[in-house]
């Protein structure tokens, strides 16, 4: 690397300050990276279990809607599906995990009381109601899974970013600064030797 620094004492002091700062930053970022990895693994387990739950609920919901379609007819199921116009009411917030802002989604309001679903409760269809129940649970799980998977994705991005910074500090910034410091130090020592030699030569001429 071509060193483009002025070999002055003030520059040396400046560089030493920078090296110290970089080393402190390096240590902190390394700790952050390790912390994020621990958090990531915690969420990974949660994400894995919610994925399994999601798949299981999807299978149950598909089977139940299939049975409802078989017993009541697809026409009746489609008709019942038209009666739900309201979009799910979600509460979206945020939380901070080691400086990473991740979403928190409250999806508890998806499940509605059976008589508040918007269709008649006189002569209800048990099969359609059961399909409705499982789909409500499925939607709740999908929303929870979406929250957890977004958190996981954000943590992964942040881990990647922190890792790049740690590597840059470890393998590029700190070595460059140390090299520059060594160069200045050597240059200053050489200048000092030149001065001493020059003084001796002047003294010898007198």
């Amino acid at each position, binding site marked *: 690397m071509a060193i483009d620094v002025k070999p002055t004492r003030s520059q040396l002091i400046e560089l030493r300050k920078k090296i110290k700062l970089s080393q402190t930053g390096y240590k902190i970022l390394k700790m952050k990276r390790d912390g994020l990895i621990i958090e990531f693994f915690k969420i990974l387990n949660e994400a894995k279990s919610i994925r399994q739950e999601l798949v299981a609920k999807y299978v149950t919901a598909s089977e139940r809607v299939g049975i409802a379609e078989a017993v009541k007819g697809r026409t009746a199921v489609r008709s019942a599906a038209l*009666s739900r116009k309201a979009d799910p009411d979600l509460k979206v917030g945020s939380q901070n995990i080691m400086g990473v802002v991740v979403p928190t989604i409250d999806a508890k309001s998806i499940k509605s*009381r059976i008589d508040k679903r918007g269709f*008649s*409760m*006189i002569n209800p269809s048990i099969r359609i109601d*059961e399909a409705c129940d499982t789909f409500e649970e499925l939607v709740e799980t999908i929303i929870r899974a979406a929250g957890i998977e977004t958190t996981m994705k954000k943590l992964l991005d942040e881990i990647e970013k922190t890792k790049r910074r740690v590597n840059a500090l470890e393998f590029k910034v700190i070595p460059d600064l140390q090299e520059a410091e060594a160069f200045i130090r050597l240059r200053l020592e050489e200048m000092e030797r030149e001065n001493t030699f020059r003084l001796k030569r002047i003294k010898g001429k007198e």
Partner: protein
Amino acid sequence: MGKFRDSAMGVLKIFDAWKKRSDAKRAGKRPKKRSAGASNFPYVVARVKAMKPSLFPRDTLAKMITMDLPQIARLVGESAYRLEIDSLALKYRGADLIEHALNLNLGRTLSKIVGWSKGELRELLEIYVSKYDGQNLKTVLRAKLYAAPAEELEWALIGAGHYEIEFWMRLYEKAGYDEILGELDKTEFGAPLREVYEETGTWDNLAPYEEAIERLYFERLAAGFTGETKAKEMARSFIGKMIDAMNLKTLFTLKNENVPAEDILKRLVIAENSIFKTEEWKKLSEVENLAACGEFLRRHSVYKYIAEGLEEALEKKSLGTLGRLLKRWARTGTGKFSYSHPLSIVPVLDFILQKQREIDNIRIIARGRELKLPEKTIAFLVWPE
């Protein structure tokens, strides 16, 4: 012997009616008729009995469970449903084709039977098949709320009942609910729906409207089947059981979800010949939970029919089997419909019930095969004989 006696009595009745008519003609008078016109039981019963052999035998349905979807479609297409399968084959495929063909055939069959009938018989049959009108009206109201495309609505309508699909489509094309209500004022649905609108003042929640439609159907059904003859008593008993089964289903569903008693009671349609008196229904709706419902019902005859379903409901919180057993209970006694009282509404009702059961079963099998449900599950869902 009893069967022979009933037939002989029927022939005598026809002869009697013919003699009265010819006597009246000779005297220059119009024969005396009921206000709604005399019913033509012998003609309709004969037509309906002629249609009966076209129903699938039990064995064929059992075989159908093991068939693939194309095989089922071919079998259905080679039977009484050929016309419907052929006319819809370009528009739909697979189980959708079968379901639409079945619905269309049901609509056509019911219209034919109603068309053949006269007088009181026609009135009663019109009330019975008006459940499809209610179902279609609910679909139209839902589609309007959801602003569903017309094709989706057309898909979900059933061509059975008093009104044609074109009527429901025209209703859907109205600009808003007020215009729809204006159009419905010309029908039996106008008054109850207007009442709900005046009470709620909104169309955002369709549940009260749908409940008014359902209530209208069951109340008309309960009020329609009156009279002193044994055949009418039989039909009334069946209708009463059907309404009771519907009430019990409503009650169990709402109790399973811990809905308050007053909200349950207002959703029950209590017919005159119900197995419970109004007070008993009130008590039943006030019991603590589903288990207490079971305890309450233990001393009633219905319990032995539904005990297994109640146990499953308590164990798994699933009411599927209970609903199925209630349906089976409602049909107990209908086995006699085909041979007792041959000149009454009963054999006509018997054919309609058998047709509905056949259609339900074919749809269950076709959908089950389409969704690759295990044969055991399909066999379980198919209507018990």
